[in-house]
């Protein structure tokens, strides 16, 4: 009996915390749906306890509690996997952006009679910064300043 209350309490607290984070705009709504799904899964485990007890006897597991915890852990593993996949995609994008930024900064070329620094000017100037913004790229119509 106390197991049910425990899992239910966790699920309710989960949903409340998630919604509060969404309200504060700290959590994207899609993650809110994801974690709410986990909470609903947890609540289902409580509600379907009789079914789980029958299922565990079928599978040969002694206690229904073991199945509840196992399923709970399974949900969390699935969510963690999904987040890892998402992080992978984000890392790819960050890399891509960093490379774009490098190309926009331009290529520093060795200058004759220079100090050898090739250092750019103060932030924001694009002309006399010792960098060559013509990468020799493919665009027929190179972008201009907004």
């Amino acid at each position: 009996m106390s197991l049910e209350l425990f899992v239910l309490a966790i699920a309710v607290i989960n949903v409340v915390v998630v919604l509060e984070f969404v309200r504060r705009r700290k959590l994207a709504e899609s993650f809110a749906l994801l974690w709410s799904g986990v909470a609903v899964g947890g609540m289902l485990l409580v509600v379907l306890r009789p079914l789980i007890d029958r299922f565990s006897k079928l599978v040969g597991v002694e206690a229904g509690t073991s199945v509840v915890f196992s399923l709970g852990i399974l949900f969390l593993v699935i969510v963690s996997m999904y987040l890892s996949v998402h992080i992978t995609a984000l890392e790819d994008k960050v890399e891509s952006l960093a490379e774009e930024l490098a190309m926009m900064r331009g290529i520093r070329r060795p200058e004759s009679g220079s100090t050898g620094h090739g250092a750019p000017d103060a932030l924001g100037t694009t002309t006399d910064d010792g960098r060559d913004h013509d990468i020799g790229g493919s665009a027929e119509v190179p972008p201009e300043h907004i």
Partner: protein
Amino acid sequence: MDAPRRSDVLVLVPALNEQETVAAVVSSARACLDCDVLVINDGSSDRTAEEALSAGAMVIDHPFNLGVGAAIRTGLRVAAAQGRAFVIQLDADGQHEPAEARRLLDQVRDGSADLVVGSRFESGYRVSRLRGAMMSALSWVVSRRVGTPVDDTTSGFRAFGPAAISLFARYYPTVYLSDTVEALLLASDADLRVRVVPVKMHPRQGGEPSSKRLRSAVQLTRLWLVILMHPIRRAPIQRGLPHVA
């Protein structure tokens, strides 16, 4: 820019692999309106950008696909940076009739509205019953919140006035469906006047594959969460680069 004279109207055309239609859309927009056209190339792998340039549009290229919402946000930030007074959003696939854009523009030009939405339903555009029911539900809730009847809440055929450009350059929701529906809620919060104008739209070709249906269901659920929580949510923050004033 060394252009001889800049129009106070910027037409935004977000485009992802629309090489067949984008040039026609751009030409038509330039012919019907006194405007400049900016095509936001949202990671196209085809010749969309080249086609747009050859038709006389300006093009800005996203490093990778970010979605229609982000494309419009980019466009609005460019419009704000360029000091444009009016912005029109137009689809690159030819669904929106550029000649109809004039009617949207007129409403913001004469100062009677800050955000004008072109509604496809009043001109007899037909959708499936399920989709129709969903759009009615969205319309009912949004119309109540905004204070004006809006029957086409997800329409991307819109005109923005200076107040709207200024608001959305500070924060614009980019997630699919939020870019249209939540934008209406945010506009209303900022006391912008929203008007709806019936427009003719060409029907979309092709159906929805089943994998898209599941994604649409998730996106709709997310949207409803946004709509329901909107009144109690904190003011949105836009992280990242401040827009160039």
